[in-house]
């Protein structure tokens, strides 16, 4: 649960966790309290995954390495069709 709250999970990690939660719920054998906790965690995960999928704004940056390290610049494609 903590790992979700601090937002560190990648989409794939969140999906994997969601997978294992669903399997546990489907197998029965968990106490009701645990089942409720799992369900709540599962809902959070699915919202997290959903929001990751639906971010509409594509983040495209140009990476430039300087002496200060990596700098990110917004990338604006130039279309001069040289076939490169």
């Amino acid at each position, binding site marked *: 649960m903590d790992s979700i709250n601090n937002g560190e999970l*990648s989409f794939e990690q969140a999906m994997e966790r969601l997978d294992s939660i*669903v399997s546990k*719920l489907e197998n029965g054998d968990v106490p009701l309290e645990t089942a409720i906790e799992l369900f709540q965690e599962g809902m959070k995960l699915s919202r997290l995954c959903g929001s990751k999928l639906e971010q509409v704004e594509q983040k495209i940056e*140009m990476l430039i390495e300087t002496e200060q390290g990596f700098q990110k610049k917004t990338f604006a*494609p130039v279309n*001069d069709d040289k076939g*490169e």
Partner: protein
Amino acid sequence: MANQPRIFSIKELNRYIRMKLESDSLLGDIWLRGEISNFTHHSSGHMYFTLKDKDSRVKSIMFASHNQRLPFIPKEGTKVLARGNVSVYERDGNYQFYVTAMQPDGIGSLYLAFEQLKSKLDAEGLFDAARKRPIPAHPRAVGVITSPTGAAVRDILITLQRRFPSIPVYIYPVLVQGTQAAPSIVKAIEAMNRFGETDVLIVGRGGGSLEELWAFNEEAVARSIAASVIPIISAVGHETDFTIADFAADLRAATPTAAAELAVPHLSELRSRLERQLQRLHQGMRYKLQEDREKLQRLQRSPFFLYPRKYLLEQAERLDRLTDKLEQRTRLTAERGHTRLARLRTALASHHPGERAAYAAKRREGLSKQLEHAMASLLKERKLALHGTIRQLDALSPLKVMSRGYGLVYDENEDRLIKSVAGVEPGNIVKVKVADGRLDCRVLDVKGD
């Protein structure tokens, strides 16, 4: 007298020269640049032609087994690079060039470098399938190493946008042709590995001539691709273009667009995957709740909760039944004890001492009868034996002898039989036993014989 010179046959000479040529390391695998003339493609499949340049010519053969995969059709006047070995056609005594591979000249030197580098790196194992890293199913971000202008980067961005708009993309701009291209690509791959925020790299450029694509055939680029920790998808030129970079990459995409498709999953696939998971989550929870609710209802409906008084009565009845059973059991057990006792008594009585005494008396009577009988027969036996002995004794008895007139002379005390005159003095008393009595006598005289 001069030595007789050795005379060779022509065949021997030709064979010797052939052996000389074939054992030469340079002639065994040599590349020639020349122009094709007198070209004949024989019905057997073999190609016969002459390779010539402005100064010289050499007869050449390319056997069917080698020319089947020729990437072009040789014609009169085609300038080619040909690879093969030199040998002798023994029958005619002329040497020929036996071509094993051939391609049009022009791009020839590049092609040669390509083949040489490819086989060198291949021998090193740089292209081994085991070295290939898997492309992650869902990368956090995609790195793109290409020219920031032009078709390749545009195709890649459009495709990424279409498939998965939310994925972050980092573009590392590089030169993709010219002498500075290779070092610039190598630097970018190293930088992307240090940057570390991308899980997959696309390295490539759009289509072009072999010369334009050349940077992707350079050894330094191939090595940095192989050395990258982040998996690399190569995307150089068009579908038909194969570069050394493609062999070194973890995955080769036919085009930059294909590379973008391979780099990220399709958003709609992920959406439906998430949707499925969400449905299963709800269904699993519903099922769990329903299961628990049913369990609770079953418990609530149990007779104990519905009719507690009835339950108590049932328990009282059960207690009574058990008490009855207990009594019955106790009785039965006592009866069984009695029966057993009686049986044991009977057994014990049969072992009473009185019984044993009667039996012993009976046995004693039998035994004494036996004894008497044995005694009687023994006596009888002995009596008979005695009679026998008496008869024997009788026969041997001195009395019997004496009855024929013999007497036995004893000394006075009757304890010594006198068998000699020695020791007998006149006047001694001797006693003479005869058959029917004894004579006490006095010795008058003693006379030896």
